[in-house]
């Protein structure tokens, strides 16, 4: 079956999605999309801190995916993981949302799930403490990120982050996270 472009337009419209990218993320793409969303929100005369929060969460989510992909470089799964990333930014009447997903190896789910449970249940004061702890911690050698992204996302979100893991096949799950600002 061949989908028409208007079908895609309808799906984006009913899902309230402003912009979406599906495929392989690069730093250049993240920068361009981030700056474009910032400009769009400035034109809509959104308050500066709303723009700041949407931009921050977008950067953390996409760089998390990019960093995860980078850890798989050289592995036979690399191309599958790198090629199956998606991010959408949308707005409903009252809120913006950043919704992203990527392939993840089965064996990587547990530590991520634990972290997600922790940050999605913590209140703002607890998140502040977690953030502080992580900032003071010595860096793990060889890591691209500082392990603070999800904590920062949860702090800037206006409601608890939503996430899920859906089985793709024996090797992969599709991990998605939706953050409302």
């Amino acid at each position: 079956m061949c989908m028409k472009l208007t079908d895609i337009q309808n799906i984006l419209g009913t899902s309230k999605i402003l912009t979406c990218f599906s495929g392989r993320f690069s730093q250049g793409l993240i920068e361009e999309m981030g700056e474009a969303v910032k400009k769009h929100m400035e034109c809509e005369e959104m308050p500066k801190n709303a723009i700041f929060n949407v931009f921050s969460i977008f950067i953390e989510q996409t760089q998390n995916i990019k960093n995860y992909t980078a850890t798989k470089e050289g592995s036979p799964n690399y191309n599958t993981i790198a090629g199956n990333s998606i991010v959408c930014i949308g707005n409903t009447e009252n809120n913006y949302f950043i919704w992203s997903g990527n392939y993840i190896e089965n064996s990587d789910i547990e530590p991520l799930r634990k972290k997600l449970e922790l940050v999605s249940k913590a209140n703002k004061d607890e998140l502040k403490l977690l953030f502080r702890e992580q900032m003071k911690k010595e860096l793990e050698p060889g890591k691209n990120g500082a392990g603070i992204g999800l904590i920062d996302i949860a702090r800037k979100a206006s409601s608890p982050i939503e996430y899920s893991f859906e089985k793709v096949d024996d090797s992969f799950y599709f991990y998605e996270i939706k953050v409302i600002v």
Partner: protein
Amino acid sequence: MERLFIDQAKATPQIDFDMDTRILIIKGQSYPENAFKFYEPVFNWLDDFLTQIQDERQIRLELSLPYVNTSSSKCIMMLLEKFEEAKEQGRNILINWYYDKDNESELECAEEFKEFVDLEFNLIPC
């Protein structure tokens, strides 16, 4: 020691560290692909600089960071820790952090850094 200058790019700030004036400037958004790699020459320069300085003439760090991602925040934190250590050894250090007065999130971020370290730390609206 040579002055350290790195031009500003879309995802990296301008770095301008001047040994003679002792004014060290970091200015611009910071969310590079690999923050630790970007800040490595900055850390190295600072380590050399702080070893050479033995007197009490003021060293001023001027920060203007409209947006920092979390791994850059970690690098800024590591930078401030180096200054904290230098202060304990008797160096005279002042931090000026400039923020957009219309953006409360930027102020909150700056306040948090101020709480993290024991340094003379001004928050300056602009």
